């Protein structure tokens, strides 16, 4: 199993190649969308690179729970409900949702994921 450092190194390589950012921009706290400028199509690129780098398969719904965010049961007036938050936490145990929870606007969800979240996700996948 790769160490935390090895995971960060490979995730950094994938992000540098996929997003054309400098290596020193890829800090653990950097958000994928806001800080690194990832657009929706880039996530497909990132997923391809991570699958190859780690020899794993990444089901899209694990990283991008769009089905929850478009489900009327979990979203009311543009905000994720408590039930929705619980569902997101269950689906994305690797993501730090504490900041999002304070004002859970669906439109802000895309900017939630950080480099660190991505590393934690990969760690759970390679440990399987």
């Amino acid at each position, binding site marked *: 199993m790769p160490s935390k450092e090895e995971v960060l190194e490979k995730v950094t390589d994938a992000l540098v*190649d996929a997003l054309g950012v400098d290596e020193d921009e890829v800090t653990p706290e950097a958000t994928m969308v806001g800080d690194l400028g990832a657009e929706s*199509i880039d996530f*497909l690129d990132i997923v*391809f690179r991570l699958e190859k780098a780690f020899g794993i398969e990444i089901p899209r719904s694990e990283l991008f729970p769009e089905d929850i965010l478009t489900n009327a049961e979990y979203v009311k007036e543009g905000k994720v409900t408590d039930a929705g938050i619980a569902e997101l936490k269950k689906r994305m145990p690797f993501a730090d949702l504490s900041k999002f929870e304070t004002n859970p606007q669906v439109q802000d969800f895309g900017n939630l994921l950080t480099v660190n979240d991505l590393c934690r996700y990969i760690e759970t996948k390679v440990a399987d």
Partner: protein
Amino acid sequence: MRWFWIDRFLEFESGVRAVAYKNTSITEDHNDDYQPSYPIVPASTIIEGLAQTGGLLVGEHGGFQERVVLAKVAKATFHKYPIAGTTLTYTVELEDIQPDGAFCQCTVKDGDELQAEVQLMFAQLDDRFPEELFEPANFLRMLRLFDLFKVGRTKDGQPIAIPEHLLEAERLDMAAPEAN
């Protein structure tokens, strides 16, 4: 002018790789207009040729049922400026394919000389994008022009069969050509 940026396929192995060529010429306006009196083949037209080669490789893998579009030029390195008049060979290898997209590694050569290396990402459109990309009978005509079914082989070395839905569209088109 038609939006064809390759002339023919030379090889086409289903789900694995495709090799196509493009005869460039100074009679094509864009080659001389791009840098007047220095007729290099614009990199964008080379990328488009690779995208057509790769897009058809990805599309064929799904029996041409999916609508495949170029989603991203992930990386492109041009080592040379090909001069118009040369024949460029585009080789595209399918590195990964998933229900929502595919990743391809591409090279461009002039003879044995490497001109460019490009990584392309394709997406397969879902129901959020309802438009048809190609009229099926015209699409089949294009595939025939490119010799896809002449050189195309499955992984077992068998000829690639023309999908029934395209043949049916062609039959309807021949029966009532004015409808298209």
